[in-house]
């Protein structure tokens, strides 16, 4: 039915805009109120439109209702404050009757300012991503719980604590000042990167939801690019990285949810438009000094858009990982580096280096060893794959490893 389809799409897109503007207007201490007002607005829309039909201009209708509810809330609180205590600030608010500005520009500005407020170092990374999904992307609590593979209670607690922290730290909904921007941007980029990864690597069965996470991360990153102050090289590099990864959405998973590994992927399913976008932003990111880890990862991702094993490919990827590991070590980077080493310098050298890595609890480590030994010593390879199978936790991972074992037997 036309009506049922309109509201869910509208909810998410308009919810986040309304919440952003209200948060900015009311202050960070009242995030919950902003959410409540927005939610009430949509409840009213659902109830009214069901009987009276969808209005000519649904968005204008929503904004009018949201504004009125906000004004009523402010007026009620002023009244309450007057009766109980002298809260000058609230009185002044009512006296001025400031207009709640839902213009395009203020919506964008508010969203950007909320992005900085939500991605605040005072709260944990998990909480930042959760809040971003809720406030900036308009996801429901159920959806967030699904993406994180946890339950509603956990998410509600996490978000509640995060909002409390933002309130007590008195975080401002405003653009950080000139000097602060680079530092705060670091937090923002980490959260956007985590948000994207959440969607890209999530085990959740809901493909649409996972893709939406990635697209939301890209949308928010693009907001930063469109704004002159935040259109910095690292942001462009992150966006390029996301484009390259997103280009392989269609090829990564089969319809039944099974993962298709990179070298098994059908490259005709790769989205060339996204790859070209990535290349464009990669170029943009090279204006200006400094190579952030996003630059390195974007370059690595660029090389992966070339499927054939041309000579420079793996040598370049190897050197990029060599560099990345110096800036920021991670077990996955160490493993990927070892794989690139095998392709560039040969399996023998890679095996020697691999055995120096102390990643005994990591199933990817043993999968890699299995791969390296496959053409050299099949018994050893099998042992490593079986060890990997023991360590693997998710069914998708176990499936992938099982296939490798079958190939050997």
């Amino acid at each position, binding site marked *: 039915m036309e009506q049922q389809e309109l509201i869910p799409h509208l909810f998410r897109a308009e919810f986040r805009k309304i919440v952003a503007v209200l948060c900015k207007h009311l202050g960070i201490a009242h995030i919950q109120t902003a959410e409540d007002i927005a939610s009430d607005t949509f409840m009213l829309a659902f109830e009214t439109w069901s009987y009276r039909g969808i209005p000519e201009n649904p968005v204008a209708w929503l904004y009018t209702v949201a504004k009125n509810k906000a004004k009523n809330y402010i007026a009620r609180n002023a009244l309450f404050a007057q009766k109980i205590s002298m809260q000058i600030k609230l009185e002044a608010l009512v006296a001025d009757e400031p207009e709640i500005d839902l213009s395009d520009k203020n919506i964008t500005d508010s969203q950007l300012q909320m992005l900085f407020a939500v991605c605040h170092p005072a709260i944990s990374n998990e909480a930042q991503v959760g809040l971003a999904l809720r406030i900036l992307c308009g996801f429901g609590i159920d959806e967030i719980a699904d993406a994180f593979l946890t339950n509603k209670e956990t998410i509600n607690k996490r978000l509640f604590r995060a909002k409390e922290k933002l309130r007590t730290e008195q975080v401002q909904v405003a653009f950080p000042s000139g000097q602060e921007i680079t530092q705060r941007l670091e937090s923002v980029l980490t959260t956007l990167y985590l948000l994207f990864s959440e969607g890209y690597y999530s085990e959740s069965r809901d493909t649409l939801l996972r893709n939406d996470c990635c697209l939301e991360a890209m949308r928010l990153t693009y907001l930063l690019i469109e704004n002159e102050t935040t259109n910095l090289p690292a942001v462009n590099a992150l966006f390029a990285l996301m484009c390259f990864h997103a280009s392989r959405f269609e090829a990564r998973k089969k319809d039944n949810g099974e993962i298709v590994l990179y070298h098994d992927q059908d490259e005709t399913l790769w989205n060339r438009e996204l790859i070209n976008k990535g290349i464009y932003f990669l170029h943009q990111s090279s204006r200006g000094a400094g190579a952030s880890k996003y630059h390195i990862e974007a370059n690595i991702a660029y090389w992966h858009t070339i499927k054939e094993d041309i000579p420079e490919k793996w040598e370049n990827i*190897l*050197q990029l*990982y060599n*560099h990345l*590991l110096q800036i920021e*070590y991670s077990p996955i980077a*160490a493993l990927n*580096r070892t794989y690139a080493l095998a392709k560039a310098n040969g399996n023998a050298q890679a095996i020697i280096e691999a055995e120096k890595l102390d990643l005994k609890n990591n199933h990817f480590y043993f999968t890699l060893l299995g791969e390296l030994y496959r053409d050299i010593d099949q018994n050893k390879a099998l042992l490593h794959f079986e060890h990997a199978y023991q360590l693997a936790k998710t069914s998708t991972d176990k499936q992938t490893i099982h296939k490798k074992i079958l190939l050997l037997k």
Partner: protein
Amino acid sequence: MNEFILIFRHEDGMKVASPEQIQHWMKQTRDWIGGIAAQNKFVGGNGLPFDEARVVKHNNVVTNGPFGEIKETIGGYIIVKAGSVDEAVEFAKGCPVLQGDGNSVEVRKIAKGDGVH
């Protein structure tokens, strides 16, 4: 876990090798460092170019140099994390500089300044 500095001693490569050779050494060095970084044991490092080098001695005597003409000249360093000097020595053995007869890598523990070390 301690930090160790690995000091490379060798002549100025540009005097003895072709650009091709130097590029080859560069790959070897990056791969060697990458291997240490992959074990999460790399702290930092740098080459020490020979141009604009000076030596300041007693009585404020300042001379130009060293020029990298002998194999004992310091050409660069890296700092690694290791549980023992033996582990640091194992890292040092992979240094490409050691392909040259007469070159060496000095391995020294870095003092922690905690009153014990």
